[in-house]
């Protein structure tokens, strides 16, 4: 299918299935039930799943294939967001030009930063990219306030020109981002008995782009270019003595992955048209590293799973508070209930980082290949279970 091998085509179909049916998959519990707080099927969160999925897929093209660990990728996310918001301010509220500009701008910055940072490898490369990202953050936060809006961030205003659109709507409001008349925030609710499933225009737009981004990533992984990138990770000495300079290849990978980040940033601004400097902060760069490693660096679907898991925990575990805990453990005797709640409490609410940290440590120690390796081990274990069932029948034959 589409020039893919069977295994890759299956992976693509899985991603298509997951994204297209996400409103159902993420809302397994009926509205109003005690478990409803574990539902993640609301537009805002679903959009974040796919946007960070795109970000992580792009990051993985650099880190997973070449092994160059960039610690400043959030800078490209921020550049993408600012570019998109500027397009909304100056041109029109259509998301297509905004996203295109976001990708072009982040690509140009990636070319510049990559050209300088890729002179070094290993930890020095990581530190150089981190330094660049922090410089970008400082620029956006204070120095370039007229362009970036400084501390308050860049927002739309009623007097923006919007040459190809309207400065304000008929009702005197700021128009919202859309795609040829379809507004990104529009949703359609489907109620089946007590379940409510929300279908959001913005989410499906992002999901289609995720599928395209994932497809492109598969093609890159399986191409001669992808093979060269893996060769760079494996042995640069041999590559040098094969007459090749690794730099153009790593730079191309860096720019591609920067453009993926810019695309994610542009989509973020398209869902919610504002951009702030905090999007470029180093913790945001660290987050995408965690997503990729948690899911499985160098695997195709890993980064998407990692992004989903971290965003799910960030939004769902952080919402649990002590009252909810008390209601869960209400069946226990009073003293025991308080004791259990006191133990669990540090891991929920604002403590979700603690839970994430523990899960991350467990994954890195026991599943170095990330969640994907976990899945592979389960699959292998199931397969072995099956073959063992059939073996005894065969092995008894010679004995007779």
């Amino acid at each position, binding site marked *: 299918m589409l020039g893919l091998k069977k295994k890759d085509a299956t992976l693509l179909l899985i991603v298509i299935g997951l994204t297209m049916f996400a409103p159902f998959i993420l809302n397994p519990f009926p509205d109003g039930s005690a478990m409803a707080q574990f539902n993640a099927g609301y537009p805002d969160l679903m959009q974040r799943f796919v946007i960070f999925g795109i970000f992580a897929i792009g990051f993985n093209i650099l880190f997973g294939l070449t092994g160059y660990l960039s610690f400043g990728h959030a800078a490209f996310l921020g550049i993408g967001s600012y570019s998109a918001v500027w397009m909304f301010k100056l041109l029109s509220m259509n998301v297509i030009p905004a996203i295109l500009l976001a990708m072009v701008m982040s690509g140009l910055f990636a070319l510049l930063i990559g050209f300088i940072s890729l002179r070094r490898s290993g930890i020095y490369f990581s530190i150089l990219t981190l330094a660049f990202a922090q410089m970008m953050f400082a620029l956006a936060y204070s120095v370039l306030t007229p362009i970036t809006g400084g501390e308050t961030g860049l927002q739309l205003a009623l007097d923006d020109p919007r040459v190809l659109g309207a400065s304000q709507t008929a009702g005197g409001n700021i128009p919202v981002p859309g795609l040829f008349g379809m507004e990104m925030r529009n949703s359609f609710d489907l109620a089946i008995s007590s379940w409510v499933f929300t279908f959001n225009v913005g989410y499906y737009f992002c999901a289609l782009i995720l599928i395209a981004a994932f497809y492109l990533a598969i093609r890159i992984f*399986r191409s*001669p270019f992808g093979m060269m990138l893996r060769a760079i990770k*494996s042995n640069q000495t041999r590559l040098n*003595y094969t007459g090749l300079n690794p730099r153009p290849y790593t730079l191309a990978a860096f720019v591609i992955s920067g453009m993926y980040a810019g695309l994610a940033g542009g989509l973020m601004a398209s869902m919610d048209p504002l951009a702030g400097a905090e999007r470029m902060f180093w913790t945001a760069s660290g987050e995408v590293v965690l997503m990729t490693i948690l899911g499985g660096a160098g695997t195709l679907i890993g980064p998407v799973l990692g992004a989903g898991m971290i965003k799910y925990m960030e939004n769902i575990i952080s919402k649990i508070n002590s009252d909810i805990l008390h209601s869960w453990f209400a069946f226990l005797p009073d003293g025991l209930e308080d004791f259990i709640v006191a133990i669990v409490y540090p891991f929920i609410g604002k403590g979700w980082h603690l839970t994430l940290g523990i899960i991350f440590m467990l994954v890195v120690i026991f599943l170095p290949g990330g969640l994907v390796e976990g899945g592979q081990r389960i699959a292998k274990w199931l397969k072995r279970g099956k073959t063992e069932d059939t073996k005894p029948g065969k092995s008894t034959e010679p004995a007779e």
Partner: protein
Amino acid sequence: MAILEVKDVGKRFGGLQALSDVQLSVKENSVHAIIGPNGAGKSTLLNCLVGKLIPDTGSVMFDGQSVLGRSPHEINQMGISRVFQTPEIFGDLSVMENMMIPCFARRDGAFRMHAIEDMMSEKDIVEKAEAMLEDMNMADKREMHAASMSRGDKRRLEIGMCLAQEPRLLLLDEPTAGMARADTNNTIDLLKQISDERDITIAIIEHDMHVVFSLANRITVLAQGTPLVEDNPENIRGNPKVREAYLGEAG
């Protein structure tokens, strides 16, 4: 005609004069061995030829062009391939992918993007890599993880990867070091076959006299950073100066 011409090369590391006044002339289509006791400067000389080190004095000409000041990948593009003492291969990749990389890079080292095409759809590259694996007798190992092979197979793959670039000069740095006798003999046969069948010059650094005398048709003996004698194998075998360098005064 000499394809590689080394003249008056000297290299000093701090207080140690590693090479001094080295003259070496490798004739086209010959197998030229460079031998010498430990610390004679064999590896330093090799590193000066491939651009890893830059000699302090002298000149290194390959096919009439100086290699000095060029980086390793540029020197490779001129037609010099190098086999390392410990095989340098792409351990994380499959044997087939290992072979495809030099076929893809050819020898010009040009940046080729090819980011969308499927690797296996590049017919000419796949065919060339398969033919080379066949030549190396490794066709049955094509899907193997390169790092999981034996030392001898890794060496065989590395030599194949170098040959895929169709170099004019193949440099080998102790190709049989740390190998079992059977692997050593296989490597000797392979190198013999290469020099017989291909239009190629081989320069080999070796410790193992069995390997040297079964392959070389010209030998340079290096001692304490300077060439002692250059001659054909028969004369080297009987040369008292060589015995002395290897075995000390008593020899």
